């Protein structure tokens, strides 16, 4: 491992990593792609806010209200800086990535949105991909059902890459929106945003990235990416659950209709109509997840203090190590790219003749190795590969090569049990 990346020091920041599991097993947490663990720095900021500064935001005219609002809004600043948003008002807090994706889908084909870029009906097309998380599939299916538009998708190559061979036939003048994962939560594949975006721009469509698996793991700059919308979720980025982020270009947010109605999203209300607050508040109806947003701000501070480049480098080394070590387990097949080119620290695999549930159970129960088993909310991708499920190990800044060794030892044992 690189000399400047002190993983042992980082591990000390995450209290759960030093806990023992029943039976005295150490915890080997390889499920950060599902949800990450939290450092003391985040836990403390949230505790401190709850203990000393908590009140509702935006509407309370007292010291606590001011402090709480200040902390909540400064979390927005932190998010904006972290993802390179040109304007802090382009950051909308949601409860997770799923809500952010639904919010954008809801803006299309919506009678109260007359902006031609969002008008949608029969003949219009939505383009996603076969490697999407259900959160980036179902909202678009619902949109297609509501509007009569057609849902289309990129296929995935045997190697687990986006198949761009029919890019020009798939993304056409009929396309209104293309929404794909920045990084796959199963394959680890990092998608070629620039190539897809160039075509999207040619046909005058909009483009969204599901960045749930990229923002936590590497530097992401929305301005450099050049897309229109980007979603991610706090709990995968050492932040708390209950908070997610939608970034969108300001003029698009302005055109989009509110998603949920309620307190704080309005300007004025009469009995028969309302006018809405400007973005981002237009999209934040009701009391938001205040402490969670503040926790996310602390999480991004924490990640920045270590450095996203350093984190990405560390995960790259782990991934290389894992691909090599797993390659030596007989009967193990990696589903996804087997090289480090454009891939992140998520490795899914099958073990010949052994169901992932059996793999996961024995890894957990005998070795304390926590992985995810199943279809990882990406059933169509598993259908594509003709398998019902995979076992997935996903790495983060606090993981070590020794933990990958533990995984490999566990897999050898699993094979023995089912031999």
């Amino acid at each position: 491992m690189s000399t400047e990346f002190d993983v042992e020091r980082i591990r000390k920041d995450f209290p759960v990593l030093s806990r023992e599991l029943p039976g005295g097993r150490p915890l080997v947490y390889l499920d950060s792609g599902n949800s990450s663990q939290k450092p003391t720095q985040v836990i403390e900021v949230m505790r401190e806010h709850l203990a000393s500064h908590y009140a509702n935001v935006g509407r309370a005219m007292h010291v606590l209200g001011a402090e709480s609002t200040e902390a909540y809004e400064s979390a927005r600043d932190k998010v904006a800086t972290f993802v390179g948003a040109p304007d802090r008002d382009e950051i909308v807090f949601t409860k997770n990535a799923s809500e952010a994706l639904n919010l954008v889908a809801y803006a299309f084909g919506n009678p109260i949105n007359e902006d031609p870029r969002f008008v949608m009906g029969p003949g219009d097309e939505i383009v996603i991909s076969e490697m999407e998380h259900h959160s980036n599939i179902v909202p678009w299916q619902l949109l297609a059902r509501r509007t009569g538009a057609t849902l289309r998708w990129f296929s995935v190559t045997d190697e687990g890459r986006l198949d761009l061979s029919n890019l020009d036939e798939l993304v056409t003048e009929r396309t209104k929106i293309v929404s794909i994962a920045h990084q796959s939560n199963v394959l680890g594949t990092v998608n070629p945003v620039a190539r897809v975006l160039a075509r999207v721009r040619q046909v005058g469509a909009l483009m969204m990235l599901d960045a749930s698996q990229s923002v936590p793991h590497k530097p992401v700059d929305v301005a450099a990416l050049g897309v229109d919308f980007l979603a991610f979720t706090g709990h995968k980025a050492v932040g708390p659950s209950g908070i997610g982020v939608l970034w969108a270009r300001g003029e698009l947010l302005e055109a989009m209709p509110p998603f949920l109605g309620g307190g704080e999203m309005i300007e004025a209300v009469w009995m028969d109509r309302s006018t809405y607050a400007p973005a981002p508040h237009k999209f934040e109806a009701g009391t938001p997840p205040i402490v969670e947003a503040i926790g996310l701000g602390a999480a991004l501070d924490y990640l920045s203090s270590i450095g996203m480049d350093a984190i990405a480098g560390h995960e790259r080394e782990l991934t290389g190590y894992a691909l090599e070590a797993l390659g030596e387990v007989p009967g193990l097949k990696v589903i996804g790219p087997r090289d480090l080119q454009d891939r992140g620290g998520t490795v899914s695999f099958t073990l010949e003749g052994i169901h992932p549930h059996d793999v996961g159970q024995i890894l957990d129960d005998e070795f304390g190795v926590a992985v995810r088993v199943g279809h990882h909310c990406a059933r169509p991708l598993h259908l594509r590969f003709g398998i019902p499920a995979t076992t997935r190990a996903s790495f983060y800044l606090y993981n070590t090569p020794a933990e990958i060794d533990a995984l490999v030892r566990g897999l050898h044992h699993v094979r023995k049990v089912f031999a």
Partner: protein
Amino acid sequence: MIAESMYQELILEHYKHPQGRGLRDPFDSEVHHVNPTCGDEITMRVKVGEGGKVEDVSYDGQGCSISQAAASVLHELATGSTVEETLSVVEEFTRLMQGRGKVEPDEEVLGDAVAFAGVAKFPARVKCALLAWMAYKDAVVRSA
């Protein structure tokens, strides 16, 4: 460790050498059951003869060792018994699986199926063990 106790020799044996697997004719009813959380699936056919005698239980499916072994054990227990007898085994098996590991299994009624007692301690796996048995119950009802 606890999972070792779940993976009884008998379960592993049935998983590696499933009994009665494959769909066969003739049959009175066919059902298809899925476990949406893990994608385990089973298609099951039953043929009931005179006097309510179960002449064949045939099945095909995919899933983890627990779900596949449970189907194999069920095939062995049910074939040749009467519908009535098998339904009381299904009932006892269901009671055992839903007992969170606190139910004393009735070995007399369960026979080989008692090997699944350890599964009851793993709530996430109970559905795997029950998949084939629930499919069987459904198939029998439909065959009537």
